[in-house]
């Protein structure tokens, strides 16, 4: 595994946005999934798989994003870029 890079909210946010479709990269906080979101169910599956591998490459951590914790939240961490960034920061902080 390559050396891990320092974790920051900005760098996580960049990783997320880079993996979104071009058409979804609009506004301050693009909606990822759910009403008005950029991705359908299969799109979310592909996106999260890509993101897990990118997080492994950049931070050297093998995260599983669709965890029990994510699924049990009343507000999905996959809703938009802000919520997903905060959720990943939380996971990487453990």
């Amino acid at each position, binding site marked *: 595994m390559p050396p891990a890079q320092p974790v920051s909210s900005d760098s996580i946010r960049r990783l997320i946005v880079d993996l979104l479709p071009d058409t979804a990269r609009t506004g301050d906080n693009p909606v990822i999934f759910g009403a008005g979101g950029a991705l359908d169910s*299969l799109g979310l*599956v*592909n996106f999260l*798989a*890509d993101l*897990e*591998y990118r997080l*492994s490459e950049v931070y050297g951590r*093998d995260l*599983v994003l669709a965890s029990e914790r994510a699924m049990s939240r009343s507000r999905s961490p996959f809703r938009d870029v802000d919520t997903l960034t905060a959720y990943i920061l939380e996971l990487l902080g453990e």
Partner: protein
Amino acid sequence: MKAARVVLITGTSRGIGRGLAEHFLDAGDTVCGCSRSPASLAHPCYEHFELEIADEKAVVAMVREVVRRHGRIDALLNNAGIAAMNHALLTPASVAQQIMATNFHGTFLFCREAAKAMVRAKGGRIVNFTTVATPLRLEGEALYAASKAAVESFTQVLARELGATGVTVNAVGPTPVPTDLIKNVPAAKMEALLGRQAIRRLGTVADVVNVVEFFLSPCSEFVTGQVLYLGGVNG
């Protein structure tokens, strides 16, 4: 000359899993195997991971390490399994949990993680392992048969969920093959079991390899969600 494949096989320390690993290594492929015990195979193209297949963190770490090393997983063979021949009323809850953990939960975890890599690569083959004990409703194997019924159902649903991704998911159901898994089955019981097959003999690793290679063939891209039993047993 065909390109070497990266094949992940669970349960490679012995039995069918070891036979599968030897087959793919002989074919020039790279095999990444795992078991609870240290490697029993030594080959330049064989990489072993020691883990418990129902341990989520260990499975995630193994699959991602395989992708880091080789860039992809062409095929996943979920062979690892355990059996406990016993009357359902005499089966301890802990044994039932262990059977479900290894046979179903382990299969699920490897499918989930390998499929992520395969979806990213826009293709791949998953072959899960079931048993003729499930369609034959074999007495004395209630928990084993039930765990494999779960594997079959999971295989068929996952095949649909991945239908648009280029990843196929199928299952092979071997008859008894002379391995450690069946060494304690009484001869009379084994005879009765073989008597329920259309072709009444024990299976071989080569019989299983044949089906697995069919599912892995590039020509089988239109074959998914299928459960194929050996020996002429029907579901």
